[in-house]
């Protein structure tokens, strides 16, 4: 299937292979490099699942551990195979996705073959799993010393009582000690089924050749995807405040508003736009409240806003350094209540929507970001470039309804890191 967005000067080719693997090509005329990402709809939140009638509750950090181990094959490490072609490979595990990618300026087909082969070929031994524990243990140690990461983890603990999103993506030194080759094989079988995955190529390539290779190097059989369990849900936050002390020079805070999860049939892309627009109008770096709080030194240029979506959850996030996080929080919550009551002024809404369009448009120029966004969109049955049309469907009333949800009692939690 081909799709064209004339106003955006973008087009796309998309096909679902017989085994269910979705393949998508986003041409980028004139670009030197081509970026390919093979993603599975499996992240750190998918730790409990049922497959073949048996329930598995896996140790924290298993999706991320699997990501590290996939690079290893019986005939060597995929990183070294990429090194010979000069491609630049990497991978990441988020709460909702594990993805393997490379970018290259030549020998694209050779690189694609390496990528497809290593991701679809699990090879785990007691010995190579034990070795990886050491490396991941160091990675966990590094993240434990990173204030921004600890702040984010604290917020998720504050917002959720049971949801697995509150567990750090890489797990802990203790939890990864329980990971065995068997656990890794089970997860690979449950979630690295072609049906649960997507291949996105952004740059310059031959779409038919991509599809031919994807069919050749992915398994013909696609096992049924495991059913996932995310725990009990509740509307109120878990804790109003989560505090930690670290070696930082000033207090840092993240304030989160717990939002309702996506409803059945609701567009994920539209919700992402709506959530981002709402949080930017509330206190994005061009919003009136931002100017006020900045003037009082309650926030600084590092202050940032975000809106995150994951299975059975959604949240708006705002924060940065502050001389007084409590006062900043009170001001932001007051503004949320006011916007819920009074709605958004039309002129402010119009200019913020214009800016949002500009921000999302710029992603199209960044192959890594565009392909990643497209992978997330595909898993929800959508295409990223439809954002422009969806943007037009958002009204000030829609945004007001969002604030009404955020302004309810017990919907916000704040994570704070204070200097030792």
């Amino acid at each position, binding site marked *: 299937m081909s799709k064209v967005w004339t106003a955006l000067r973008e087009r796309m080719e998309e096909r679902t292979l017989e085994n269910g693997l979705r393949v998508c090509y986003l041409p980028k005329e004139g670009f*030197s490099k081509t970026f390919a990402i093979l993603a599975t709809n499996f992240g750190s939140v998918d730790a409990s699942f049922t497959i073949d009638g048996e329930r598995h509750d896996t140790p924290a950090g298993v999706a991320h551990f699997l990501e590290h181990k996939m690079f290893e094959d019986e005939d060597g490490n995929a990183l*070294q195979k990429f090194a010979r072609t000069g491609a*630049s490979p990497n991978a990441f595990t988020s709460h909702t996705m594990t993805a393997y990618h490379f970018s290259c300026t030549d020998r694209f087909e050779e690189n694609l073959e390496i990528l497809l082969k290593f991701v679809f070929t699990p090879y785990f031994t007691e010995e190579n799993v034990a070795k990886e524990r050491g490396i991941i243990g160091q990675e966990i140690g590094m993240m434990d010393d990173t204030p921004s990461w600890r702040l984010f983890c604290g917020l998720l603990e504050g917002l959720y009582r049971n949801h697995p999103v509150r567990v750090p993506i890489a797990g802990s030194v203790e939890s990864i000690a329980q990971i065995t080759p068997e656990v890794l094989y089970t997860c690979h079988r449950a979630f690295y089924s072609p049906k649960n995955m997507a291949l996105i190529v952004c740059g310059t390539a031959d779409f038919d050749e991509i599809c031919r290779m994807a069919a050749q190097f992915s398994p013909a059989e696609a096992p049924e995807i495991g059913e996932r369990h995310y725990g009990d849900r509740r509307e109120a936050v878990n804790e109003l405040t989560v505090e930690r002390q670290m070696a930082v020079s000033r207090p840092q805070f993240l304030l989160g508003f717990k939002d309702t999860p996506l409803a059945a049939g609701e567009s994920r892309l539209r919700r992402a736009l709506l959530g981002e627009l709402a949080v930017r109008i509330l206190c994005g770096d061009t919003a009136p409240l*931002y100017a006020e709080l900045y003037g009082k*030194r309650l926030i*600084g240029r590092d202050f940032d806003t975000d809106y995150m979506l994951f299975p059975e959850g959604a949240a708006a996030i705002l924060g940065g350094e502050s001389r007084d996080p409590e006062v900043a929080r009170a001001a932001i919550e007051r503004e949320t209540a006011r916007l819920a009551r009074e709605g958004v002024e039309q002129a402010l809404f119009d200019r913020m929507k*214009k*800016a949002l369009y500009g921000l999302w448009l710029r992603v199209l*120029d960044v192959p890594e970001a565009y392909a990643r966004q497209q992978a997330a969109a595909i898993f929800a049955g959508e295409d990223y470039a439809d954002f422009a049309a969806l943007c037009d469907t958002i009204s000030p009333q829609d945004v007001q309804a969002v604030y009404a949800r955020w302004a309810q009692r017990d919907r916000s939690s704040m994570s704070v890191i204070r200097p030792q």
Partner: protein
Amino acid sequence: MQQVTRKKLAEGVHLTCVTTPKFKRAVIRTVLLLPLGGEDSALRACLPHVLRRGTRALPDLRAIGEALDGLYGARIEAVVRREGEQLAVGFLSDCIDESCAPGADGLTAGVIRLLAELLYDPYTQDGAFCPDYTAGERENLLDRIAAQKNDPRVWAPLRLTQLMCADEPYGQPVHGTKEQAEKINEKKLYAAYQRALDEAQLELFYCGPLAADAVETLFAQTPLAQSRPKALPLLPTVVLPQPAGEAREVVEEEPVTQAKLSLGFRTGGASLTGGDPAAYWVFQTLYGGSTSSKLFLNVREKQSLCYYASAQFIAPKGIMMVNSGIENDKFAVARDEILRQLDACREGDITDAEIDGARRTLATNWGAMLDDPLTLERYWLGQAAAGTMVSAEERIAQVQTVDRARIVAAAQATTLDLVYLMKGAAK
């Protein structure tokens, strides 16, 4: 194909233009290049942040925010950066190209006008900067100086540079010192602003779909293209000779769980403008610049000593750094292994596959840069600050001809200057 042009618009004003139809956005930069270090350091680091607070026409953040939203979410950030031997202060903007949205005609001109206003037409009170903005940004600067240690991964290499280049302008803190920052007031800052406007070279940059002459016309309609007859010439790159005697070792304790180990080396002459930089890039890449490098394979994969261990060639200054995160008790093992891999390079223990892989990695990295206007901005400012003008395509061609003998020579010219260990002392 990208067209890169560089033109002197007036005395002390240069415009570098990268024109390509492939982007839907544009990156525009306006910075003053000044000498690093000295009495004005903190004032200069504070300057763009105060200028970013308001202009005569848009006197506060709210008004600037409204203008940026109207320009389809254009971003303008204050820049305070070390560029080789110079300090760059000013603004960096990225915005969509006007062809990509309905009713966005004149967007690029609007952004350039706003950049010009921010630099040349600030909001003032009684012939100086606004006391309120100055006081706020003085405190923000003090916070930034104090915050440098927050992220150990950022702090360790920075600290290494300060220790290693303590006697050179390059080692002086980019944000100035706490003592300097505490003395900032609106009058001193305004005087420093006028000195900076007088003495600096102005470096303009545009990357996007517009042709160079069209961009030049847009700049020419603003004060940015005015002649700057008192501008000082740029300082040349100084690569210090080999340090005498044993390498220094500095250990400091910080309340973190993971130790950080950083090693600083002198290249023996290789820099953007001196020695044999092409050979040095190939050497640094196969030593520690990729996931197939000697450091990655041996220090991380074989010995599981760390999650990361990588080498960087800081070409604008002619130094190389190796950074890694380790357990406290692995200090000696990790340091020795890092140096052992360097010895292997010096002894020519390098395979053809490693050389080929390094060349390809460099070609991919530089090739990929051509797709990223923000990286191109950095690249071309680095060239401008060093007074050279070599494109990424030329760099790629240069490394293709580098042979084993030149790589070994680069490794042999490299000497260890300083070992810095930031020891984890968390309870």
